[in-house]
């Protein structure tokens, strides 16, 4: 009797299981259906370089989409004064953004420029097939290969080169994003941008000028000299900042090319309303920092409610302020005092600039280059400024209201050059008044040589409406010795 009951029980469970399974199989069918979408017509894909993305797919039907991508090995700028030979898809790092919809049949032609030295290929994570296309796209310099694939899964996907040595190809910038929009497209937003993080390994330390070769050992040790958005320091700051107006919704397609580091992607002063976790279909809401693995992506969107500059960072924060992973979103429009009072400073960090900070007794490096012209000093000073001062005092010396005093047309600066030298040498704490506004902040002592201090101050004094003082190294050592 008991046995019978057990059998019935098992039977019922079996039926329930069957029902469950059949339920599941209808789900599966729906997914398989993407493969059966018929394409209607042919179109050339619009490809864009970062930070821009092509127009949304909207409600267009699935099509045969022609993508032509050229591989270029070319010299570029990592940061002021530092050159690097990038290997690129389409001439930019990250490579051109490809926008498709689910069911598209992509006909992909990969061309390898004749002047290139190396064979390359492409592995698109959006491809269902061996190697993600890498097997079919391996192409020698001066040649091209064509293959095609159907987009089966909506989401944001990384593509990258997968030619040996894979790590080196990726470390030199060979990655980008391909978006597969769902049927009918993603919900409409006002602004869309393309950001991709990458880590770089150079023979010289961060900031060492000249053409810097790739350093394999540092890459193996995961000891990055630069961690940047869109291939270089400053690709998204100053005049290159991305923009929006108050009240608009901004969507960022964020990828991480790696090769090594996971990104803790964060926008200072914003909360992501929606995050497509890992670029897939799962939505998370009200997110502060989203994790983006190497070879992964995320789609984030948020409404910008108040004006100001919002700093985009990898919140592994030394990467942001010392290695370059820093971008800007500039929002213009009406203030909303109810949402943001304006008296507190933006973010809670003390951005320190790229130069390593030391305690006052640290030993200064000695290197002197006499007989520099004013133009040479200004040029060298500008590089030092970008590396050391820029994070707080900003690109045009405008500073940040209530936090970091301006250097542009600064009465405090122009009044006393020795005081300015002293502040760079020894740092400054406490309240000061600059152009009528009170500041109470901390500036740390900067580890710069006398020569570098002279150059950077000469640059500052000869920019932005200041009094054109020409500071030389002897003035710096004089101030140093009076202490």
């Amino acid at each position: 009797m008991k046995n019978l009951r057990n059998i019935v029980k098992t039977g019922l469970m079996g039926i329930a299981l069957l029902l469950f399974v059949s339920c599941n199989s209808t789900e599966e069918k729906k997914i398989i259906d993407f493969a059966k979408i018929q394409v209607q017509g042919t179109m050339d894909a619009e490809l864009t370089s970062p930070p821009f993305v092509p127009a949304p797919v909207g409600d267009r039907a699935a099509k045969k989409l022609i993508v032509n991508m050229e591989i270029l090995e070319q010299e570029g700028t990592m940061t002021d004064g530092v050159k690097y030979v990038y290997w690129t898809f389409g001439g930019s790092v990250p490579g051109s953004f490809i926008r498709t919809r689910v069911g598209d049949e992509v006909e992909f032609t990969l061309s390898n420029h004749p002047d290139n030295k190396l064979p390359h290929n492409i592995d698109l994570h959006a491809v269902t097939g061996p190697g993600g296309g890498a097997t079919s796209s391996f192409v020698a310099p001066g040649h091209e290969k064509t293959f095609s694939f159907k987009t089966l899964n909506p989401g944001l996907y990384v593509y990258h080169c997968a030619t040996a040595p894979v790590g080196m190809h990726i470390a030199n910038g060979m990655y980008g994003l391909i978006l597969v929009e769902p049927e009918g497209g993603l919900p409409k937003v006002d602004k869309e941008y393309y950001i991709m993080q990458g880590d770089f390994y150079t023979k010289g330390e961060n900031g060492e000028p000249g053409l810097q070769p790739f350093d394999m050992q540092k890459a193996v040790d995961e000891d990055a000299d630069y961690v940047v958005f869109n291939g270089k320091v400053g690709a998204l700051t100053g005049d290159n900042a991305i923009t929006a107006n108050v009240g608009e919704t901004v969507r960022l397609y964020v990828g991480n090319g790696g090769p090594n580091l996971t990104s803790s992607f964060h926008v200072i002063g914003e909360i992501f309303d929606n995050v497509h976790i890992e670029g897939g279909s799962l939505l998370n809401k009200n997110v502060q920092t989203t994790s983006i693995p190497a070879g992964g992506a995320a789609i984030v969107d948020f409404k910008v409610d108040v004006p100001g500059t919002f700093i985009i960072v990898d919140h592994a924060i030394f990467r942001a302020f010392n290695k370059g992973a820093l971008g800007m979103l500039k929002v213009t429009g009406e203030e909303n005092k109810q949402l943001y009072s304006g008296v507190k400073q933006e973010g809670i960090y003390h951005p320190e600039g790229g130069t390593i900070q030391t305690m006052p007794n640290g030993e200064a490096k000695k290197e002197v280059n006499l007989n520099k012209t004013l133009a040479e000093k200004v040029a060298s000073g500008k590089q030092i400024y970008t590396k050391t001062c820029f994070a707080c005092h900003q690109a045009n010396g405008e500073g940040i209201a209530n936090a970091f005093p301006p250097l542009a047309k600064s009465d405090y600066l122009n009044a006393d050059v020795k005081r300015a030298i002293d502040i760079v040498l020894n740092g400054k704490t406490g309240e000061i008044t600059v152009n009528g506004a009170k500041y109470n902040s901390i500036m740390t002592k900067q580890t710069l040589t006398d020569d570098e201090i002279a150059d950077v101050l000469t640059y500052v004094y000869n920019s932005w409406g200041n009094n054109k003082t020409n500071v030389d190294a002897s003035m710096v050592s004089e101030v140093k010795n009076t202490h």
Partner: protein
Amino acid sequence: MKTILRLTICVLFFWTANANCQSKMVSIKGATYTPLYGRDSLQVTIADFYMDVYPVTNEEFLQFVSENPIWKRSKVKKLFADATYLIKWKSDTALNENQSLKAPVTNVSWFAANDYCESQGKRLPTVDEWEYVAMANEKLPDARTLKKYNEYILSWYEKPKTFNNEIGSTFKNYWGVYDLHGLVWEWTLDFNSVLVSGESRKDVDNDSNLFCGSAAIGATDLMNYAAFMRYAIRGSVKAKYTMNNLGFRCVKD
């Protein structure tokens, strides 16, 4: 007057130097070694042979083309050279202004290179022979474990347009051979015997044993990276391909 004299001496000196470096060969003493891609079980034995000191130059190839018109750019069969064959030359028999007679000839197919060597009573080196000579630096016959040696090779990948440089512009190695690294890629007789599928990560478990798993997995080793590049380029070409960065030299038994 003095200047003219000096100039003449210079020119004379240049001529003799040129005459010397044309098709000059050095002898290479054979041995058994483990190739870059290899494991201990995959030792290769090289017999004694002679190798060209320099890659074949534009000047030498111009001469060859004028003697063998079937290799003129306008005459060459599509089967034996693709559309970029000698594309940088001004015409069938002349260089462009920006090209040097002393630069290595590039944009030549394997068929053309092979024929050139045969016309000289020589042949192309095998991959194993080429790699054997190329593992030397200035001082050592096998410098592959030295960081500097590998860095030198890797740094070439970052120097643009080295195919315009003249022969002899890199270092003279242990055997007296120049330019194996740092100038151009070079054709080998059996370039396609190493099967790189194009999907480098798959090759990790390929049992084609020329590309063994341990080398790819233990890729912390700089020497593997430098070597991978050469195998990758060889794996990416076909015999009719020509490239801006691909030249050749000959050997003789």
